[in-house]
């Protein structure tokens, strides 16, 4: 399974965490589509804690974190 974690406004209507069978997503972008998230709404995409691109591959056991624009100091 791939674990998808949603944060900030991306939680609206999606909850905090979703599990997706690994065979149903080859790249992070497939997860955007699955959860109906426009790519431009994702400001920070982490795969296992590291900044990644939507086209980067995902695999079984990965943790994907999706953030809209957030920040501060």
């Amino acid at each position, binding site marked *: 399974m791939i674990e998808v974690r949603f944060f900030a406004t991306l939680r609206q209507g999606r909850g905090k965490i979703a599990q997706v069978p690994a065979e149903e997503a080859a790249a992070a972008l497939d997860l955007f589509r699955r959860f109906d998230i426009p790519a431009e709404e994702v400001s920070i995409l*982490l795969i296992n804690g590291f900044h990644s691109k939507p086209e980067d591959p995902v695999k079984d056991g990965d943790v994907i974190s999706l953030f809209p624009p*957030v*920040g501060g100091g």
Partner: protein
Amino acid sequence: MSDAYYEKIARINLSTGEIKAEPLDLEVAKKFIGGRGLGTKILYDEGVAAVDPLSADNKLVYITGPMTGSNSPSSGRYMVVTKSPLTGMIACANSGGIWGAKLKFAGWDALIVEGAAPEWSYLYIEDDKIQILDAKEYLGVLSEELDDLLKAKHGADCSVLNIGPAGEKQVLLSCVMNDKDRAAGRSGTGAVMGSKKLKAIVVKATRKQLDVIADVDALKEANKACLKIMTDNPLTGAGLRALGTASLVNVINGIGALPTKNWQESYCPTADKFSGETLAEKYLVKPGACFHCPIACGRIIKHDDKVIGGPEYEPLWAYGSDCGNDDLWAIDEANRLCNEYGLDAIGVPCTIAAAMELYQNGCIKEEECDGVPLEWGSPKAIIEWTRRMGDPKTELEWLMSAGSVRLCEAYGHPEFSMSVKKQEIPAYDARAIQGIGINYATANCGAAHVRGYMIAPEVLGIPAQLDRTVIDEKAVWAKIFQDLTAAIDSMGTCLFTSFALGAPEYASLLNAATGTNYTPDELLEVGERVFNIERMFNKAAGMKPEDDRLPKRLLEEPVSNGPSKGMVSKLPEMLPQYYAVRGWVNAFPTDETLKKLGLDECVGK
């Protein structure tokens, strides 16, 4: 006057009671802009670097920038500049709210407070008129209540800056509060006010806006352009309003850079319990904004039966994972106590975390804890020890109120103090984010995140996404961020605008307001000048090259858990690169660098 300055500084000697209006030297003002830059220049020239910070010889400069109080976005900042009793070096604590704008509306660019009052006093400023009034009846009064009392006396349209009981007792982690929940938070500025027996400064102004702008139409155009950039930007236009700085808890934890249990770990599995998302869901009433700010990053929260200013990211982290705690109500309460007692909401919880590690290792004994053991994750401990540090009585309470360096040295474990230049490090693990370590090590005020916020490029992708794990080019980035930040602070504009604006926009605002003609590069050079005179202040105050450092834990103990497991800071490789970019040798500017920056007064020193 038509240059965004009122060209007037009040010099108030509390020892003699003498109050003088002095002309602002416009040439010097424009060379250092104002705020942080001009404040440091004044103190450097007046020899304050050499004085005992808690003696009558120290001076407090409350200073605005030319943009403070203007109609530009997020232009309500003022700074408290002094010699820090915590670090022994320059302190420049920056705050928002409306107090700074009111000081400017009253017709003052800055106040220089010197000497020490024979009895507890406060300043009442009403336009040109400044009075020293008796404050004895307000001794021991908490910050928010004092704000109410002074408004009841002088009118609801005044603005109040004050110290709580912590500042009165010269607690080294005390701060200056204004407008109830805004703080000039770091480096112990509250203790300097306390040493001068100065409890508050109340400002009332007839003016409601600045009437000294150089080119009103040009500023209107620049404001409009900048406001559009900020509202179109998803972070300054919506993101910060929605979740505030608290939104960072989950991001920083997500990359494994959220220091936990005094930096023994860097990932907290329960961080979502004290995140911005949870704060918004459980307690948020509405966003809060400082003077003329479209960002509105502040959190107005419901806390029991009261509506108060809520915690920012830093105290959420420091009272949260750094103390091994995930009880959000307890964090709100501890943060409230910081505001009421007038305490640095970073330094205090970080020192509690250090005390918890001392307790974990059996150095602090249970019998010293007076019924509240310093156990990891104890909501009671973070609340009660904050209260105690705000009004210390026992030996341990006094030690903790003096910060983690003095505490950990007293117990024989200086390595447990996560600090630089005796100031506690903020909420981003420099093992997991390489560039921020340069800023922690070299910030002139001691460890700080807001003197060159490398989190923007290394984590948030602003203005470009850098790889947080490598050191390539980080020295150059850090220098540019530090210089731009110094310029923004000197203008009196909020640093958060820089998530959307860049040097060209700041130059357009400043030039319209003051009639200068800075290019973006020249503006950055002013910032560099400011950073360098701060460094020369520190040199005169006794700073040594080895003070540009990070704690051993960050250099030698790899991250123990989470996504960044195994990483250490590579500061020793970055620091020489940074000095080379700065034109410094052994941590200090060369004479050639000083001359290039027009700092002739520092040459040969």
